């Protein structure tokens, strides 16, 4: 473990509503929390997918906008000064000699903690991969699913596939960067932003983009590195394109991600827990909210809040093994800020 690791009591994986509320329940028991989320902002689905949608089953709120609930939760947990690592995905969980943990993110950030709480919701959003033979063999060798650094494609031959906004936007951007650019799309129209679609058609007319409509990439090949992409059109006519890079852009879909490799018991893409305290089979690791499963599980924010409260009681025994926990109401004890 590096000296620069963030030190905390509980590392919460996922900063959705349930992960946020877990900070409050932990804080009441004097446990500090650090949250990690793959998304660049807190709130999980509520912020990313439906911030303006009303939620009707939060007790005490006949109706609350998802984004507003996130704001209120942030206000509620502020006294407990949680730390945040956003825009980074958790990759590895390592048990230390003293039974504590080190969680490592995709960017190499390390969080040293006594307890890990997985509140990962649907999981993290990963690129959807088309069913093209050999695709995974060329990942990192010409095939990528997102454009991280467009300069990488300077003076390269590039084939894009897809018809959504990101395919259109990157086609426009890369037309000035790549030496040869092709866009392969299944239909002859685009559902993306009309002005982007228009621009793509203009680029094709100007000869800056090879637009292959009513076509799909059916095969890729190469010798170590990707060299050829095979495109088949509706009439079953086949053409081969020499290329340096193939970038399929078919949106994102939620996956459990690296958590699936942490040795936890997984059933139907969810983590099995004991309803006594929402512990997993690994001591010191808990799972709460939409990511867990147990008999009678309901994927409700409301239920996740309850799970967070019970989890905190057991987490206390890992953080303060020598202390006895006495239960106190907030009405009696108040909220004692850190």
């Amino acid at each position, binding site marked *: 473990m590096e000296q620069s690791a963030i030190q905390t009591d509980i590392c919460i994986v996922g900063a959705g509503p349930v992960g946020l509320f877990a900070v409050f329940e932990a804080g009441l028991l004097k446990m500090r929390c650090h949250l990690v989320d793959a998304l660049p902002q807190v709130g999980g689905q509520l912020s990313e*997918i*439906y911030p303006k949608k009303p939620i009707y089953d939060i007790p005490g709120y006949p109706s609350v906008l998802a984004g507003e609930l996130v704001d209120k939760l942030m206000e509620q947990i502020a006294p407990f000064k949680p730390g945040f690592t956003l825009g980074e995905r958790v990759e590895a969980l390592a048990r230390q000699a003293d039974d504590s943990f080190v969680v490592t993110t995709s960017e190499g950030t390390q969080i040293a903690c006594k307890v890990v709480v997985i509140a990962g919701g*649907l*999981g993290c959003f990963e690129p*959807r*991969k*088309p*069913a093209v033979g050999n695709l995974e063999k060329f990942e990192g060798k010409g095939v990528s699913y997102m454009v991280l650094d467009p300069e990488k494609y300077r003076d390269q031959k590039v084939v894009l596939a*897809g*018809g*959504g906004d990101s395919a259109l936007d990157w086609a426009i951007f890369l037309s000035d960067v790549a030496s040869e650019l092709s866009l392969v799309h*299944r*239909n002859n129209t685009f*559902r993306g932003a009309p002005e982007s679609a228009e621009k793509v058609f203009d680029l094709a007319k100007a000869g800056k983009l090879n637009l292959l409509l009513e076509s799909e990439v059916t095969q890729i090949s190469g010798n170590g590195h990707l060299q050829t992409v095979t495109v088949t059109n509706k009439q079953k006519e086949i053409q081969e394109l020499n290329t340096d890079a193939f970038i*399929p852009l*078919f*949106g994102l*879909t*939620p996956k459990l991600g690296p958590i699936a490799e942490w040795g936890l018991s997984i059933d*139907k*893409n969810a983590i099995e827990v004991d309803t006594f305290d929402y512990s997993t089979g690994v001591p010191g690791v808990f799972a709460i909210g939409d990511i867990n499963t147990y008999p009678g599980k309901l*994927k409700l924010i409301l239920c996740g809040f309850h799970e967070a409260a019970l989890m905190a009681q057991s987490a206390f025994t890992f953080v303060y093994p020598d202390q006895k926990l006495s239960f106190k109401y907030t009405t009696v004890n108040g909220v004692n800020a850190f």
Partner: protein
Amino acid sequence: MMDESFVSIEAEDLNGRKAHFEVPKGMGLSLMEVLKGEDFPILATCGGMALCATCHVQVLQGYDQLPEASDDELDMLESLPVLTDTSRLSCQLKIDAMHLPNLQVKVLGEDNS
């Protein structure tokens, strides 16, 4: 005369296994919810928000009689690597709005394996 209070559904999973359900109307269920309720292998990760497309089905019979897809559903379908001319998201297909005796679908999304 057809019985308007039920829809007869035949579904085929990713392994080609077929199952048949008589689904009553008036329960407010989507096709995805019916399939999940029957423990039919279909993932439906997002729970019905037209978000993950793991409940993507190809409609083999009854496509033309289904209510039209919303923009959200069409946008999601458009983004998929695999799409057929009769593709729908089963979470967006409300049983109560179906005016057809038989619906036949084949899962193209993902199952739990």
